[in-house]
């Protein structure tokens, strides 16, 4: 193992890692905005609009991202009208083209994820919300969105990891991010495996961090699944046999108030 070469390669690749992260954050954010509009159109029930949204999802999920990116970067420049339009300074830049095509693609995938999340909202919860007189907006904010988001999160974290890998395609429209730089180093040095190793480590670390953060978010938004507090004070107090002992011990939460009625000697009086 040539550690000098490895560390030099690593430094060169780490220098372009911010570009990969920038591509990723931009395409995820723009894609998310697109997907919200597409999902809204898809479930709106307006005939033309929902068909249009379905067609969008079909086209962008059914064809390779590479061909979409080439279509945007090389294809649009074929038209004089595009070259003379006000959008040309944006589209001419390979970085912008890459971001736009990545965002359009992930927008379609994310829209499918949100739709799946919406479908998973239990109908009876919506009915219950209506029954107690929630307005449409309140129902949406309190019942539908929290439920759908929670259902969609695991699929969403898979999708954003896939997008981290998809940013590699930007190198084919001359954006020199990690994969592009790695390819250039390989063709300069002919040391494929060492360069691959460095680039792979960068991607694996990035994806590991993304997955960890998403797990944390999933944990934070699902307190209801984290086991209900065991050993209810009432059961202890009334002395129902077996009930107080049953159930898993309450997890120790730092900063939580001390447990009530911890020992039999401190047991409160039972009113008769």
């Amino acid at each position, binding site marked *: 193992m040539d550690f000098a070469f490895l560390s030099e390669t690593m430094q060169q690749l780490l220098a372009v890692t911010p570009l990969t992260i920038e591509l990723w954050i931009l395409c995820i954010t723009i894609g998310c905005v697109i997907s919200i509009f597409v999902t809204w159109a898809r479930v709106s029930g307006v005939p033309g609009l929902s068909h249009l949204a379905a067609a969008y999802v*079909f*086209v962008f999920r*059914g*064809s*390779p*991202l*590479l*061909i*979409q990116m*080439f*279509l945007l970067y*090389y*294809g*649009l*420049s*074929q*038209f004089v009208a595009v070259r003379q339009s006000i959008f040309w300074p944006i589209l001419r830049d390979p970085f912008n083209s890459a971001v736009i095509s990545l965002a359009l693609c992930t927008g379609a995938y994310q829209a499918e994820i949100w739709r799946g999340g919406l479908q998973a909202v239990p109908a009876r919860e919506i009915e219950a919300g209506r029954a107690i007189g929630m307005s449409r907006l309140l129902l949406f904010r309190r019942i539908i969105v929290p439920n759908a988001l929670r259902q969609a999160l695991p699929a969403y974290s898979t999708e954003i*990891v896939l997008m981290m*890998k*998809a*940013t*590699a*395609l930007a*190198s*084919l429209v001359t954006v020199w991010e990690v*994969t592009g730089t*790695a*390819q250039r180093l*390989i*063709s300069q040095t*002919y040391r*494929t*495996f060492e360069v*691959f190793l460095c*680039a*792979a480590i960068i*991607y*694996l670390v990035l*994806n*590991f961090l993304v997955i960890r953060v998403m797990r944390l978010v999933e944990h934070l938004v699902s307190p209801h699944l984290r086991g209900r507090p065991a050993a209810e004070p009432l059961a202890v107090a009334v002395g129902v046999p077996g009930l107080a002992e049953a159930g898993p011990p309450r997890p120790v939460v730092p900063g939580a108030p001390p447990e009530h009625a911890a020992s039999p000697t401190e047991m409160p009086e039972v009113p008769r």
Partner: protein
Amino acid sequence: MNLIEILGFGEKGWGGLLLAGMMMTLAVTITALIIGAIVGALVAWAKLSKSLVWRLIGDAYTTVFRGVPELLIIYLIYFGGSLWVSWLGSLLGLQGFIGLPAFGAGALGVGLISASYQAEVYRGSYLAIVPGEIEAARAIGMGRMKRFFRIIAPQIMRFSLPGLGNVWQLSLKDSALISVTGLAELMRQSEVAAGSTRLYFVFYIAGGVLYLVLTTLSDRVFGVAERRVARSFRGGLGRG
């Protein structure tokens, strides 16, 4: 020149080339899926193994191949493989750079990626087998091999079909990346046609449409297969 002439099958038309590319895409994806099935089954076996070492190897495989960009893996196989073959050649007295065949390298690259996804599919299917059936087979004295071929393998294949459909779609789209090695598949042919005619928009749209045809058709094929397989299941959730 009008569009029909350019996209047609005449002397100046590129239609034939694009269709040939489409066939090449199909061929390379099918080869990749077969490679992926073999490697994926082995990786699934490693991940389900009782030995910690095998489990770690299996987990490392799926983590690396699902966590690293597909393009990077194709570069590794193509350039790395070619350098390795050149080195072997130099031992045999052959001088210079020996390129790996683009088809083989591409199919291997996409196949190894697809193997990591297939391994997860097979693992999930194995875990979905009702344990009672394996116990019953053991109780009536079936050997390991017989148990695998009579009880486990048929069920894994049935349970895996929907998951394999997804992997196939992924591999079909990954196969576009093989174009970087110069293999004349659909993506590459679209590029060549676009570059020669300078009609980039037309040919990338045409290529994209042909990919949509491939994904839609294969969706249908998997749908039919799933319905056929569903006959052997008793009616239940999601097996309509």
